[in-house]
């Protein structure tokens, strides 16, 4: 029978490897049996409390219990919304305003944090919830009514208007993604993942669901290790990690510090990376030191569940070349569209548009923004067919491989996170003393630079921004100006700011 629920992955594997570790961090591990029992207890609990087909916020630290809670929420017929424990209060409150959640699940640490928030709904603690006795008939009834286009999660991504957008994904698109991604990465029961990406973005789907599908194991790597490369490699070897799907900056941190001269990640055989351009000089170091590993570039927007394209590196690259994003996964199609919504000539740039089951359902409670980017395929005038317009420009090279060229707007990729510079500017402008603010991005040094005009010190601006923005969005450099350069239309002249920055 065709799979139509992601939880079938768990149910199919739990009897085969009940005592194997599914998810672990440096302290604790959860077996498949633990995941199965506890997530069903959570599902029973939420359902008995009367929650159904609605968002349930998971506000927990980065540990296996958070992952178990995700599945518990799906068992209840609701959809999970992971929130970063370190996210500033302002941003969490913005997300809560958009969701209006009736229930939040916390762990013993975060429950103290949430009490300070302006939130009137119910708060439950994980340790209490998992004590619930599983009610088979309730869970069976929920399952019978669930269909594969029902949502399973919402993840929030940066919005240029200053308000984060919640992307809603369903069983169907996640199953489609996991099946095709696992094929490309060649996941099996011997796979040991080392997870780097946060649990509150779609990037972690790459480890979470294939682990269930194959009975593999995922180790959550402590965040602090990504500052100390030798300790990181030690962790990889200690846990015999053989597969990583990391952002490029995590990989280059290892290679750029000369780590390979002292230690090699001996078990690594699959290195998937994405979200950013891999500098070829660093890539060559990886390739040279792990000659037998497979290196796979992944590309895709949150709006299409996870990744949509892949390229397995199979040739050498010049230092000024970019590693292609290759070709779409099976059951996904890429079309390029020019400014007139026509297909560009071979080799010419066009907007990367995605077609397929991998498309998510759109933005939560935001039909306007959804309809701007999930649109009728302009090449199809015969029947309704949605495509997602990524806003990325791409072209095909002489090998017929897709190449990412640039963004059409002010969205950037920084430390693997997708950021709208506009969102940082909106927040900076909320500071009463700031008269004008503009952000630029130094692609080469990977720095966000904020320029502002106003009677306030750089230090005050920095601490204001740190209270309002997630850490990865806080500018790396803040500069005070007497006047903001303007264009003839009276808009802030970004080009001029960038030019004067580059001259320094």
């Amino acid at each position, binding site marked *: 029978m065709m799979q139509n629920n992601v939880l079938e992955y768990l149910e199919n594997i739990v009897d085969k490897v009940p005592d194997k570790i599914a998810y672990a961090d440096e302290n604790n591990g959860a077996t498949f049996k633990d995941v199965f029992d506890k997530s069903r207890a959570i599902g029973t609990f939420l359902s008995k409390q009367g929650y159904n087909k609605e968002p349930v916020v998971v506000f927990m630290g980065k540990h296996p219990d958070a992952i178990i809670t995700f599945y518990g929420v799906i068992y209840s017929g609701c959809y999970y919304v992971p929130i970063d424990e370190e996210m500033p209060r302002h941003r969490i409150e913005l997300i809560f305003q958009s969701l209006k959640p009736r229930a939040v699940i916390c762990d013993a640490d975060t429950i103290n944090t949430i009490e300070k928030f302006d939130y009137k709904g119910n708060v439950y603690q994980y340790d209490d919830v998992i004590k619930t006795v599983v009610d088979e008939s309730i869970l069976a009834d929920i399952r019978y009514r669930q269909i594969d286009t029902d949502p399973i999660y919402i993840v929030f991504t940066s919005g240029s208007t200053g308000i984060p957008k919640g992307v809603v994904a369903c069983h169907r698109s996640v199953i489609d993604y996991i099946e095709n991604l696992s094929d490309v990465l060649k996941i099996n029961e011997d796979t040991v993942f080392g997870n780097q990406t946060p649990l509150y973005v779609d990037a972690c789907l790459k480890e979470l669901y294939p682990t269930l599908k194959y009975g593999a194991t995922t180790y959550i790597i402590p*965040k602090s290790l990504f*500052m*100390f490369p030798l300790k990181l490699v030690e962790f990889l070897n200690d846990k015999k990690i053989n597969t990583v799907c990391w952002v490029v*900056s995590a990989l280059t941190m290892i290679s750029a*510090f000369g780590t390979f001269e*002292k230690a090699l990640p001996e078990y690594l055989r699959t290195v998937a990376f994405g979200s950013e351009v891999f500098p070829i000089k660093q890539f060559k170091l990886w390739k040279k030191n792990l000659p037998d590993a497979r290196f796979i570039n992944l590309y895709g927007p949150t709006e299409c569940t996870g990744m949509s394209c892949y390229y397995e590196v199979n040739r050498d690259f010049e230092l000024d070349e970019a590693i292609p994003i290759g070709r779409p996964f099976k059951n996904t199609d890429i079309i390029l569209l020019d400014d007139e919504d026509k297909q560009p000539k071979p080799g010419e740039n066009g907007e990367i548009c995605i077609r397929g089951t991998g498309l998510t359902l759109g933005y939560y409670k935001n039909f306007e923004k959804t309809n701007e980017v999930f649109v009728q395929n302009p090449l199809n005038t015969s029947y309704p067919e949605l495509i997602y317009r990524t806003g990325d420009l791409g072209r095909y090279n002489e090998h017929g491989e897709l190449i990412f060229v640039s963004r059409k707007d002010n969205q950037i990729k920084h*430390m693997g996170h997708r950021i709208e510079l506009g969102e940082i500017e909106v927040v900076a402008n909320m500071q009463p003393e700031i008269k004008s603010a503009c952000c630029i991005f130094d692609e080469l040094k990977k720095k966000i630079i904020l320029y502002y005009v106003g009677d306030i010190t*750089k230090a005050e*601006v920095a601490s204001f921004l740190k209270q309002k923005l997630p850490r990865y969005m806080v500018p*790396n450099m803040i500069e005070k100006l007497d006047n903001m350069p303007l264009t003839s239309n009276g808009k802030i002249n970004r080009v001029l700011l960038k030019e004067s920055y580059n001259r320094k």
Partner: protein
Amino acid sequence: MDQILEILEGLHPEVDFETCRTLIDDKIIDSFDIVTLISDLSEEFDISIPVEEIVPENFNSAKAIHTLIERLLEDE
């Protein structure tokens, strides 16, 4: 020492780096900063910081960084 403080203040202008002894423990400097910090220090003092020196103890305070740099400069 002044050069080190200047580099650190460039990263986080609101932090008092002269007194703070828990830059790593309290996550004031995190993985977002470490790459910038090490490349800025290497450039400023024209040294290369070997990977075995990139450990929490050497980065917990401006003083610890100063000691590390002094030691590396002497070794050259």
